[in-house]
């Protein structure tokens, strides 16, 4: 039985879904313009969510301090998003609507997201495009000057807006520009090369953060009236992922340990089209945008162990397995489904390339029909990137691709106002769990980050300020000193171990464990094994890690050591969550729960809930809290793309 936890108050409004957000906004309390300047908001992370939040909150008159680990806020990993951003503009006249984007996203997430949140996201999607165009984002256009669109996975309409293969870059530079304008106005103070290492909670409210200045090593304390975490996902726990090298879970993890619940940690997205691993020196994986599946066809040879070059394999000896298994969506099947299908053909021994862990993504039909220039214009930079990395020319030979870790749907639990279980701690973008359920559709991450930052937090944070009492606090208080002392002790401990294994070696080992047992396919035995192994590895880490250098300098090894220490804890929670969820849904595929034809088998009766985990101490198991998912407008069905 699913029992609603009294600790999870979702604040989801009631009534018709179309008007929920509007009515909710009307019911939120306001802070007058003159009073706004009395509040200080600490925004951590400056990707799409963080930069758009910092800009919008500062425009309203709040004092904002913005922190990022990069040397410039413009470099946050949103910059690397390639394909596009969804919006229900229906500019194509192809039947799109807010309802349809909502429905596709709920279904795409395998009915493990909240209806009200997803509807709001779809509703706000149209405002995002307007905002970004006004900022000068150079979206792709048609000859008549109107905006162009393309299709992404899990949709039968064309609703994705794009700027070549650099949509994330252009959107982030737009948000960064808006934030820098507020820096110039004196409303945003920027703190680059700062890593948040702890949250300061006073009288149950989030009132500050402890950061390490990454240049000097100094610990710095900042007080505020609210903390807005926009620190991204935790996919780098797997070591090999499409994330940037510095993406990490430390901020959200340390908030978890201060009392913020962590929701659905096992929901991790493995993206089907990435450049395959070439060697054990590999430091990261590179995505090839989903947009390529608009014009590329995925196939493997029908015969096992067929080592002929692709152009020598005749048409009737090829298996276009996505088109065969999912005829109505074809190559645009959603990510979780496509990834599993790729894994399945490789497991059968029909994979290609030196490792046999790859499939072809072939553009030759489109090149023949529409010409080379068409492909060059649409995907030129992606093709170039592929060629740089592999040394092969994808205009001549098909790309070889394989799934890789790309995004995490799980994250800190938030209510409808994007506030965590710690009052005053708001969580935006990939760092929260809220909108994508068990699988995120392509081109929806940019949409969510910007919806949260531009259009949700500016409303909801004011309601918080107007509803609670926030006495002034200074960083002299014991809570700040204690938090700083515990951070310092941890850093010193890491440096003092002086063991024999490097941070990188531990991280690689952890990554392999997660990939093998908490990856594309999971089972109870494997998960139990993984939990034991992770615990042992964590123990070994704290006895045998070698961190060079000292704390009073730029020391990237020390930065990484802290992050890997946190990944070693989070990994266990991911496995615990995966073990407890005895069903398959979206990206969470438990081998024990599948249909005869290998599709995910959900168990709505037992698992139609958000699993929110509460930290109970380092030597105690976390406590599970359930937030039931109630579907009033969409009936959960077997998710079919056939």
């Amino acid at each position: 039985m699913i029992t609603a936890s009294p600790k999870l108050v979702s604040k989801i409004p009631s009534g018709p879904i179309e008007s929920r957000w509007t009515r909710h906004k009307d019911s939120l309390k306001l802070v007058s313009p003159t009073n706004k300047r009395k509040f200080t908001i600490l925004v951590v992370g400056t990707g799409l969510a963080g930069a758009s939040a910092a800009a919008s909150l500062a425009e309203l008159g709040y004092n904002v301090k913005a922190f990022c680990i990069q040397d410039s806020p413009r470099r946050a990993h949103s910059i690397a998003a390639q394909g596009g951003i969804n919006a229900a503009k229906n500019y194509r006249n192809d039947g799109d609507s807010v309802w349809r984007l909502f429905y596709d996203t709920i279904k795409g997430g395998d009915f493990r997201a909240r209806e009200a949140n997803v509807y709001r996201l779809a509703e706000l999607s149209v405002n995002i495009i307007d905002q970004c165009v006004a900022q000068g984002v150079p979206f792709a256009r048609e000859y008549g000057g109107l905006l162009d669109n393309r299709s992404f996975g899990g949709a039968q309409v064309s609703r994705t807006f794009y700027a070549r293969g650099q949509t994330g870059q252009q959107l982030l530079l737009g948000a960064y520009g808006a934030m820098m304008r507020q820096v110039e106005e004196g409303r945003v103070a920027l703190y680059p090369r700062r890593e948040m290492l702890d949250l300061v909670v006073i009288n149950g409210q989030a009132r500050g953060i402890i950061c390490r200045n990454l240049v000097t090593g100094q610990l710095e304390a900042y007080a505020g009236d609210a903390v807005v975490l926009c620190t991204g996902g935790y996919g780098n726990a797997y070591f090999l992922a499409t994330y940037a090298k510095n993406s990490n879970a430390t901020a959200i993890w340390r908030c978890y340990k201060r009392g913020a619940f962590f929701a659905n940690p096992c929901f991790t997205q493995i993206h089907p089209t990435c450049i395959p691993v070439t060697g054990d020196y590999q430091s990261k994986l590179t995505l090839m945008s989903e947009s390529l599946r608009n014009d590329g066809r995925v196939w493997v040879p029908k015969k096992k162990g067929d080592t002929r070059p692709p152009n020598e394999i005749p048409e009737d000896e090829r298996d276009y397995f996505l088109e065969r298994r999912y005829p109505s969506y074809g190559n645009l099947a959603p990510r979780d489904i496509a990834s599993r299908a790729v894994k399945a053909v490789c497991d059968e021994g029909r994979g290609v390339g030196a490792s046999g862990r790859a499939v072809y993504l072939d553009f030759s039909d489109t090149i023949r029909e529409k010409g080379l220039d068409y492909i060059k214009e649409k995907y030129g930079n992606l093709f170039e990137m592929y060629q740089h990395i592999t040394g092969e020319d994808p205009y001549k030979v098909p790309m070889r691709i394989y799934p890789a870790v790309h995004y995490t749907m799980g994250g800190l639990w938030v209510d409808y106002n994007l506030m965590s279980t710690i009052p005053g701690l708001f969580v935006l973008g990939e760092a929260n769990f809220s909108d994508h359920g068990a699988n995120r559709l392509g081109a929806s991450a940019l949409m969510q980050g910007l919806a949260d930052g531009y259009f949700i937090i500016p409303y909801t944070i004011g309601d918080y300020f107007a509803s609670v009492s926030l006495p002034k606090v200074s960083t002299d208080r014991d809570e700040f000193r204690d938090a700083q002392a515990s951070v310092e002790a941890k850093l010193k401990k890491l440096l003092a171990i002086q063991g024999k294994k490097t941070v990188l070696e531990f991280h690689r080992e952890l990554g392999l464990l997660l990939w093998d047992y908490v990856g594309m396919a999971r089972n109870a035995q494997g998960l139990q094994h993984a939990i034991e192994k992770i615990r042992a590895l964590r123990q070994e880490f704290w006895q045998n890690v070698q961190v060079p250098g000292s704390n009073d300098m730029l020391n990237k090894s020390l930065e990484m050591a802290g992050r890997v220490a946190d990944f070693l804890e989070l990994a266990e929670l991911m496995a615990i969550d995966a073990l407890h969820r005895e069903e398959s849904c979206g990206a969470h595929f438990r081998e024990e729960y599948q249909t005869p034809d290998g599709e995910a088998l959900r168990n709505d009766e037992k698992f139609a809930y958000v699993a929110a985990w509460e930290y109970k101490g380092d030597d105690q198991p976390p406590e599970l809290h359930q937030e039931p998912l109630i579907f009033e407008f969409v009936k959960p069905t077997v998710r079919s793309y056939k």
Partner: protein
Amino acid sequence: MNKKKMTLHLKIWRQANAQAPGRFVLYTVKDLSPDMSFLEMLDVLNEELTKKGELPVEFDSDCREGICGTCGFVINGVAHGPRRGRTVCQLYLRDFQDGQTVTLEPFRAKAFPVIKDLVVDRSAFDRIMAAGGYISVDTGSAPDANSILIPKEVAEAAFDAAACIGCGACVAACPNASASLFVSAKIAHLALLPQGQPERHRRVLKMVAQMDKENFGNCSNHGECEAVCPKNISIKYIALMRRDYLRALLAK
């Protein structure tokens, strides 16, 4: 896949902090795969140094796919190294010769002080952007996206300029350490679009003033910036910036 292993000799600039004097130190890294990226090779070196109890070589990198603009240093005298149109993180060992000696030093410019080893401070770029590298539009006040018609050619041209990743290679390559390519790319991106017109004059005046304040040198048309730009940003934008600057001065 190439199976033959490679050896590289690396002459790397080591500098403990901004105040300390720096020097080149020679390292040899063996058994490298040609399919390895250049930064992965530095990862290997750093693992070896760590195991020997020495301090690893600090360098900035993040996305490792050429878009974030975090990485960048000078390889054999060329910012971002031997391959045109690529960042350091997009170099592979197959771009180098087995047994080659490779010199690595930080981007050098008065406006980019060295923080440590190959890491430099490029925050001057952020201050230039704060001065005016945007269109002033508050959240929520935008008209419908399709109410602004932008011909495809114009959108594409604006995009070409907007592709700048702010890595700073242009400054490092310029004999005068000028930031003109970086600044003009943003000015051109916004000047080419209809949305950018209202603030066009104000923007160019403010950004250029900030650039001068940051101790960047003047542009004297060497063109080295364009040659090292990983995004192939054209120096024609510098001409556009100058025209706009003059017009803005005259209009004042």
